[in-house]
């Protein structure tokens, strides 16, 4: 049984963001790149499923500039994934990325379950898993915090608004978008890291996938940093005075009451 995990490499949360001169993206100099946090839950769940199913294999995929993206793939290998594939390409949007991932998964064949993170923290778009499921013509569920597989179907819990949950059953193959709460991702062990370093990562050129240029649907421009906030107004006096002053300001100045 092949279990696929699609991951994305994103700037670390603590990294300072600078805008590129043409304002279509960010200045990547000095950026610390990490595996998207939600993808760690996806890798962990795939590993757990593999461990419970003798003979199963975890294949981890990522699309992006090969030179840096392989680092996140090695992290996934060090966490326990068996094989890794990099789709080398730049300037891909969610649509073309989803199509490329779907094409490669189809070509590798025999997929049973595909895990992704529920969204990537760089563009916050939460769209690749659903698009990929559509291109593969398989069901999907996103924002999943509980997963079970009975050999044929998967049953998942999906977090929705107001703390509600939906229990969803899907026929396999199926795409599952992982949320926080699904599991506790394992740390990469030292032997795992050593083994990951020696692994050969399969390379596929995006341009070899015959995906037309018209499959890039969204581009960014005019990227700007947020406007400076006015300085905070600190309230003085004892707690009663502060409470009264705050209510007055919220009503009369900020006009939010």
């Amino acid at each position: 049984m092949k279990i696929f995990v699609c991951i994305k490499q994103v700037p670390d949360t603590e990294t300072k963001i600078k805008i590129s001169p043409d304002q279509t993206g960010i200045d990547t100099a000095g950026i610390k790149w990490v595996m998207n946090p939600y993808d760690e839950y996806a890798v962990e769940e795939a590993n757990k499923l593999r461990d419970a199913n003798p003979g199963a294999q975890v294949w981890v995929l990522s699309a992006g500039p090969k030179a840096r993206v392989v680092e996140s793939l090695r992290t996934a290998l060090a966490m326990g994934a068996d094989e890794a594939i990099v789709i080398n390409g730049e300037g891909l949007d969610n649509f073309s990325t989803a199509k490329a991932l779907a094409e490669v998964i189809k070509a590798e064949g025999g997929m049973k379950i595909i895990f992704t993170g529920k969204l990537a923290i760089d563009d916050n778009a939460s769209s690749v898993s659903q698009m990929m499921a559509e291109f593969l013509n398989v069901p999907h569920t996103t924002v999943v915090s509980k997963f079970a597989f009975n050999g044929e179907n998967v049953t998942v819990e999906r977090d929705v608004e107001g703390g509600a949950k939906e229990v969803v059953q899907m026929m396999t193959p199926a795409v599952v978008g992982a949320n926080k709460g699904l599991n506790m991702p394992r740390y990469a062990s030292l032997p795992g890291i050593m083994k990951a370093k020696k692994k050969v990562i399969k390379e596929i050129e995006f341009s070899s996938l015959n995906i037309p240029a018209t499959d890039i649907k969204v581009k960014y421009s005019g990227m700007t940093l947020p406007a400076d906030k006015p300085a905070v107004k600190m309230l003085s006096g004892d707690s009663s005075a502060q409470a009264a002053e705050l209510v007055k300001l919220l009503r009369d100045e900020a006009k939010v009451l």
Partner: protein
Amino acid sequence: MGKVLVFAEQTNGKLKRSSIELLQAAAKSGNTVVAVTFGSHAGDVTAAIGHNGASEVHVVKDGALDSYNPESYTANVVAIVNKVQPSIILASASSTGKDLFPRVAARLNTGVASDCTQLTISGDNVTAVKPMYSGKAFATVNFENSPIKIVLMRANQLPVEAADTSKTANVVENTNAATDLKTLIKEIVKGASEKLDLTEANIIVSGGRGLKEAANFKMLNDLADVLGATVGATRAVVDAGWVGHGMQVGQTGKTVAPTLYIAVGISGAIQHLAGMGSSKVIVAINNDANAPIFQKATYGIVGDAFDIVPKLTEEFKKALHH
């Protein structure tokens, strides 16, 4: 001028505010506004949809669509899109919107911009702005090779005016287009809270480690009740098991954009700021004057939350109920 299709969401027969925002924005653009809504309560919201600017509303009044299913919803949205032929589709970046429309976009071979905070419609063109990198940058989304431009908007980003009850929409009944589903919704487990979800709330009162223990969230609940607010929390508090993950605001929790965010005992880790930084007015209450939350706040109070919060609750009561 073209047509704008608005995906209208409802809770138990009441049109969601986020959908009203979209209907009114579409109507203001001068385009013909067509809405779509599903389920056995679909008929309950058609009047409100008309009052808020749609001239036509497509309904599929099938109880099978009462709960969201990606496959059946995709089939039905696509069937109606093919009939209506809109140039723009607007939907909320809600649980349903974010899950459904990427799949719809893939099937329609078109682009989707998710989680947008600004919207400008000019004829058939739409420009949307969305936060990137956890709100550390903002980007304009340009559609290319997209016959239909699909924009998913965060709640509470667009103004809402009073509905015009003299306006009505022509109701078009459709039959359920879905067949042979591979996805089955087995059960819906209701949430503990009857309050608005954090992502839709207009006012949020949030607590962090400064509250010291789970029981002290009662103080925030009391304040929230007076304000009609939803209660949120930081990751530290969720990880400590004081409250459920559904209440977490931040990078691995929910991204929120209320009008008023009151942060109590929250120091302001960058992951938390990522989730609430686009709140319009931020109040920070913390006993550490150097807490990073004060750099994001509009109003700051340095002091003991256990002293200030109950007093604030009393002040709000007086201000809001006289």
